[in-house]
């Protein structure tokens, strides 16, 4: 069940022109700067804006096909939308908000019950309150619950965390991950935050000035070095690791197919999966194993290719660590001195790892 989305839509001097094939499961991030067209694309998917030339289908359900004049209005599309502002109905209680969409779905088509969703999103104690009495994070959780209770076939989220401070973001992120883990519900997630994308997404679409620059599995797209500097100095890869051991000196050992890395002690049990982000600027290269260094994490890798970066003094090196792509951002001088070239085997030293979950 794949998702096909093709939209052409002009707004003043901005034109959205995308043709996307997206997986029918997992979280697909639409990433780009403001004005890149990601929200417009999401609104076109929801049917809130009608693309003059458009085609949108989930599996065999076609919601828009302008070639034969088909346009299913938003209220007849089984989808859920979470906007940046929670937009709860102020005249209804939390329960009333959550039931609004559920009531309008035939009981045979309902996928979730209200108590189960309230439990999942931790909003049971809030059910009888008016929205005005909730915190920003609580409101966004209610908005997510309300969208889910309408039994969507697809969940569209337009920067649902952008209006929240860091503390509230961290409060909501685990719930978003549970959505993905517990329901086989495709999620289209619009964001301009590389960290959110790296943490949540399985599939990544990069948009720039209304056009798609790249679309593919997250790790594949992140490790591409030919892309315009959309991530700028934020270039980096995401690796899936497993907690292999809890060391006695306050560290946890994580293993992935390319090797092992040590990080500060994690609370998760041995065997738990942890997603890490390794920024290219935190990876340095050495031709021989370094013994007299404080850098603990070093993995064997092979150079795949090199590319220029946004600054002339640096190059981006793509590495292959036993099948796991890594990126290193080093100075051009170092690259020349070490004669870094495709095929060279070396040590990638990882100075810092951002743990995403």
């Amino acid at each position, binding site marked *: 069940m794949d998702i096909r989305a093709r939209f052409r839509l002009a707004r003043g001097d901005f034109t959205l022109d995308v043709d996307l094939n997206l997986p029918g499961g997992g979280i697909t991030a639409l990433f780009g700067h403001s004005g890149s067209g990601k929200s417009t694309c999401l609104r076109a998917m929801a049917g809130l804006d009608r693309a003059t030339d458009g085609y949108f289908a989930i599996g065999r359900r076609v919601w828009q096909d302008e070639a034969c004049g088909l346009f299913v209005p938003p209220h007849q599309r089984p989808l859920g939308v979470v*906007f940046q502002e929670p937009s709860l109905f102020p*005249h209804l209680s939390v329960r009333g908000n959550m039931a609004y969409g559920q009531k*309008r779905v035939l009981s045979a088509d309902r996928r979730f019950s209200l108590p189960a969703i309230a439990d999942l999103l931790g909003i049971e104690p809030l059910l009888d309150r008016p929205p005005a009495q909730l915190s920003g994070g609580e409101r966004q959780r209610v908005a997510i619950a309300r969208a889910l209770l309408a039994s969507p076939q697809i969940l569209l989220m337009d920067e649902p965390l952008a209006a929240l401070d860091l503390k509230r973001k961290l409060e909501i992120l685990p719930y978003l991950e549970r959505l993905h883990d517990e329901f086989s519900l495709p999620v289209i997630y619009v964001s301009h935050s590389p960290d959110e994308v790296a943490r949540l997404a399985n599939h990544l679409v990069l948009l720039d000035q209304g056009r798609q620059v790249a679309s593919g599995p997250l790790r594949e797209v992140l490790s591409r070095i030919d892309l315009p500097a959309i991530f700028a100095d934020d270039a980096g890869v995401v690796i899936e690791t497993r907690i292999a051991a809890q060391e006695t000196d306050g560290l946890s050992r994580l293993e992935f197919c390319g090797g092992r890395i040590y990080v500060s002690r994690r609370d998760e049990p041995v065997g738990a999966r942890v997603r890490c982000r390794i920024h290219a600027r935190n990876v340095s290269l050495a031709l021989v194993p370094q013994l007299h260094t404080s850098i603990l994490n070093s993995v064997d890798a092979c150079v795949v290719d090199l590319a220029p970066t946004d600054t002339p003094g640096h190059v981006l090196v793509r590495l292959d660590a036993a099948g796991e792509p890594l990126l290193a951002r080093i100075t051009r001088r170092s690259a020349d001195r070490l004669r870094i070239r495709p095929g060279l085997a070396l040590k990638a030293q990882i100075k810092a790892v951002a743990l995403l979950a």
Partner: protein
Amino acid sequence: MDDSDLAAIWLTLRLATVVTIILLIVGTRIAWWLAHTRSRFKGAVGAVIALPLVLPPTVLGFYLLLAMGPNGPLGRFTEAIGLGFLPFTFTGLVIASVFYSLPFVVQPIQNAFEAIGVRPMEVAATLRASPRDAFWSVALPLARPGIVSGAILAFAHTVGEFGIVLMIGGNIPNKTRVVSVQIYDHVEALEYTQAHWLAGGMVLFSFLVLLALYTFNPAPPGKTA
């Protein structure tokens, strides 16, 4: 107070009630259209609806009288369908009052609809509510303060009419002689005591209506949370 006073009061309340109900139905539709249309006629329609705010009632009444008369388009139409002519009837009074009080209903409701914005309606659509469903379940409840204001103003303003009643309805007991006209008659006949009763009652009524409007009408719930 004598029977004619009571009849005038009863007639006034009946007129105001009928006019308010009609205005709520018609006015809400017009307000919704004005709040959401991108038509280039929006300004013109809004201006026409606001005309009674600035025109003397005699002007509006004069043209309505002509329109409803035997040579007017409305008059020819009502005669053709067997209703006869509307001037000097209760129905004529109702029609004139609806035009006269329209801006008092349309403007507060239009403001309320505009304050809601499009987002709650979009959210309702993504939650399977058809536009009609969303209008009843989201737009109307959110616009309630504006609708209550509009209804109260329509009722009170109709009770307070004088000029347009004289132009369209004249002064026929039980049919078109409303309280304001009755007071005028009393004063003409130097019956100041009776005039006092009715005039004082109008002052008290108007004060209570406005007091209710300013006290009990809940503050708008504001933008969506």
